[in-house]
């Protein structure tokens, strides 16, 4: 690992002040992705600003929203009584991600900031438009079993690997960001980006900003929900395809529904067309199947990941079935 200057701070204000002073500085939270990338030589920041002592670990309900500080650990959120009771979809998604050891240090903000990535991004001997813009995409025409089928670009077909972010996209979460002058709010579903012509950018956080907290509206989706993650081994692997499904049922009629997928795009992928189709309809297998077909419009395989074109709709149907039968 190339050495760097290490700074520690205890307030968001001073963290932001240190960040804007140096364009080669990065925040260090849990470090589980960043330190790994630094060890592999994929990234080499000259300055790390350790923000672990900034008091942003709160998990609380304020009015009809649940606030989660950017530095709350993934395990603290997943195991918190309030989250288990009111946002169980989020708790499930978090437990499906990484390992117990990683969840203990990985933070909410860090989970959002982990790189959208693939094997070619990690292998510094290979071309990668994300790591080094303009060098080409190794995955296009290469080994692309794990790669995207939605919203792809010729420059990059990597997927965002987070499970947490799929649930947050489904739950209409908002992100509070701060710079030196003040705070702004962004819908969580707009935080991450598609690759387009700038695959080096994973999200819309500005260079002078810090993630402060999430705000998630309390909902009626805590009864019929499921997070279904399909992967190569039973645990501790990235999703081939994952589906966050939650709905509110009234006399078997769907009155509110959320559907989002992971492992299929450069960002968490909300299934708006499928949601609109199912709203007001009965929770039947036939309707689930039609919703899944709607979700697959515009999907595109790249050879190695063609199997996802079938796996994805099947996973949507199964997640909806499991959400319906949840007792």
């Amino acid at each position, binding site marked *: 690992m190339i*050495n760097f200057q290490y700074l520690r701070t205890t307030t968001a204000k001073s963290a932001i002040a240190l960040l804007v002073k140096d364009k080669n500085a990065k925040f*260090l939270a849990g470090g589980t992705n960043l330190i790994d990338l630094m060890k592999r030589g994929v990234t080499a920041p000259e300055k790390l600003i350790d923000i672990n002592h900034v008091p942003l670990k709160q998990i609380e309900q304020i009015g009809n929203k649940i606030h989660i500080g950017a530095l709350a650990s993934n395990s603290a959120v997943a195991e918190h009584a309030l989250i288990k009771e009111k946002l169980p979809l989020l708790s499930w998604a978090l437990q499906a991600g990484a390992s117990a*050891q990683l969840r203990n240090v990985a933070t909410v903000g860090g989970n959002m900031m982990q790189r959208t990535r693939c094997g070619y991004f990690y292998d510094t001997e290979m071309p990668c438009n994300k790591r080094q813009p303009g060098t080409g995409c190794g995955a296009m025409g290469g080994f692309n079993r794990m790669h995207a089928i939605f919203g792809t670009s010729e420059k990059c077909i990597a997927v965002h690997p987070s499970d947490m972010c799929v649930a947050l996209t489904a739950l209409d979460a908002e992100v509070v960001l701060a710079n030196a002058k003040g705070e702004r709010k962004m819908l969580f579903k707009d935080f991450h980006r598609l690759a387009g012509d700038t695959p080096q950018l994973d999200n819309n956080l500005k260079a002078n900003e810090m993630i402060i907290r999430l705000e998630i509206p309390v909902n009626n989706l805590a009864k019929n929900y499921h997070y279904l993650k399909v992967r190569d081994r039973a645990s501790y692997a990235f999703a081939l395809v994952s589906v966050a499904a939650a709905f509110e049922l009234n006399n078997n009629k769907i009155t509110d529904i959320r559907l989002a997928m992971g492992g299929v795009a450069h960002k968490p992928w909300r299934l708006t067309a499928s949601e609109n189709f199912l709203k007001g309809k009965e929770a039947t297998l036939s309707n689930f199947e039609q919703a899944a077909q709607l979700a697959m419009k515009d999907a595109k395989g790249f050879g190695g990941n063609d199997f996802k074109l079938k796996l994805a709709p099947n996973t949507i149907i199964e997640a909806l079935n499991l959400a319906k039968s949840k007792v």
Partner: protein
Amino acid sequence: MKSSDQKPNEGDSRRDFLKKSSVITAIALTPGVAVKAAENKADERFAELFEKIPLKLTVNNKAYQTMVEPRVTLLDYLREELHLTGTKKGCDHGQCGACTVHVDGQRVNSCLSLAVMNEGKKITTIEGLANGETLHPMQAAFIKHDGFQCGYCTPGQIMSAVACVREGHTGSRAEISEYMSGNICRCGAYPNIVDAIIEVKEGGATV
């Protein structure tokens, strides 16, 4: 003298020999690094290359105060500086769990944590688990149930297993497997590891 000419002195352990020879190798390499850094006009960066910062932490109930380079991981600090080599370096990328230690009571991958991030924290390694000559119940259970073959992943498995019991994720074999999935065993001792964890949990001893 080339490092390969070094003969271990009588009474030297293999580890001492390796340490001495790697120090010599490091010195031999340093001028090259310096030249390269100067060529790249990386003077400022080069100066920081060797800048150490103070670190205070507690490991196995013993307080340490030291200077450390920011890039040193907790794993390397434990092994190379404190010579607590029970904690193993497997993949060095958070994928195998061999480096699992407890930080303020929580299991973490020490390979993905910088030592300096652990300022003021209490670390427990496999060396700190036994009570004198009395094995920790989890260590005893791993022996009883043959929870290993080659043993390389075992310190990490045991640290993770103790945390798994403390966290209460031992409701079923499936739950134990899920919450132990961050620890890979190439010998495939998984069923026996689960047996050991169940025995400790059912034994009800404080872990």
